[in-house]
């Protein structure tokens, strides 16, 4: 299995924080790290799974490349979007993004049986945007305030609003097992 990690960080200094911890979790698998600004040049068919990593709260540069991300939509690949990756996945399917700040540990409840995580748990959130309703996704976990995990109704595409690499690593390892 070969994994494509897409960094959404404008600055390398953010990658230590948002990409490297995920590399630590998946390091036993073959993987490449690619910058979101090079999406046009990536041969997606080289990979089995794709993880779109998060970035800093002030970093919105990836929004300028949303059209490039749309090529992932019909790739047939299993995709996990984390934080900004969650927003990218929602945008790929034209879901409406809303301003919604959540910073810190929050309680999350899973609503539906799923392959990523079950039960109630605490999660580390750090985002300024979210979604309050989805049409092509199922909601599989929520906090009191917002949608936390979604899965596409027909494709193996998942979005996680929080940072599973902090305290919830099993979400990433479970994604690799799907």
């Amino acid at each position, binding site marked *: 299995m070969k994994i494509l990690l897409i960094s959404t960080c404008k*600055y390398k*200094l953010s990658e*230590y*924080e948002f990409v490297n911890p995920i590399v630590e979790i998946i390091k036993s698998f073959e993987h490449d790290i690619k910058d979101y600004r090079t999406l046009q040049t990536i041969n997606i068919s080289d990979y089995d799974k794709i993880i779109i990593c998060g970035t800093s*709260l*002030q970093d919105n540069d990836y929004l300028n490349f949303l059209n490039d991300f749309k090529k992932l939509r019909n790739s047939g690949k299993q995709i996990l979007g984390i934080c900004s990756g969650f927003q990218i996945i929602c945008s790929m399917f034209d879901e409406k993004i809303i301003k919604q*700040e959540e*910073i*810190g540990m929050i309680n999350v409840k899973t609503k539906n049986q799923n392959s990523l995580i079950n039960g109630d748990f605490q999660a580390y959130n750090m985002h300024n945007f979210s979604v309050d309703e989805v049409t092509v996704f199922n909601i599989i976990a929520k906090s009191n305030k917002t949608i936390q995990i979604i899965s596409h109704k027909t494709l193996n595409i998942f979005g996680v609003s929080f940072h599973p690499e*902090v305290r919830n690593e099993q979400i990433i390892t479970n994604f690799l097992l799907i």
Partner: protein
Amino acid sequence: MKLGILFSGGKDSYLSMQMAAENHQISCLLTINSLNQDSWMFHTPAIKWTKLQSESLGIPQIIQKTKGIQDEELEDLSKLINNAKKKYSIQGIVTGALASTYQSTRIQKICNGLGLWCFNPLWQLSQEKLLKKLQDFQITSIITGVAAEPFDESWLGQELDSSTINELLSYSKKYRINPAGEGGEFESLVINAPMFEKKIKILSSKILYSNFSGRLEIEEAKLE
């Protein structure tokens, strides 16, 4: 980008700064001087010697005193960061946060509120990798405080070199401590590093120690 470093003078904040300096301009050091030795946010016994570090680095420093009462110290941190934003036109803050969501949440909220970037280049780094990075980056630091078994007073003033690092790694297995001190097991002060123009020489100090808890009180030090 112009950055301010949340700087305690210890190994983590210095290492974060050196990582940030690879691609960004370090405009100032931001130091909180807490009067509460048990503060959850800021705790370092040798904080007054950050002035010498600032001089050796050639980077200006802003110091903010705080009583170290839980909510007040966050207000003081916010005041400090806002002052740095106004005075040095910084666009972001760098911290040495590793694993504490308590600390990182609070700093992220302050930065987000002020429209500043927040960088945590050591975030989620393992204790072992952090210790290796200190050596790779040629950072010389000494232990200025201990607060866990099995640290005896001979650790105070010791340099973190390959021999002490190996000992810390063996302690981590035997006593289940964090070998890089993330749980507050020990505190450090950087006395020499690549960004220093001169190293810090400690001329006199005394050890205050009892029952696995102690600190090195530096009385006199100079740059040489």
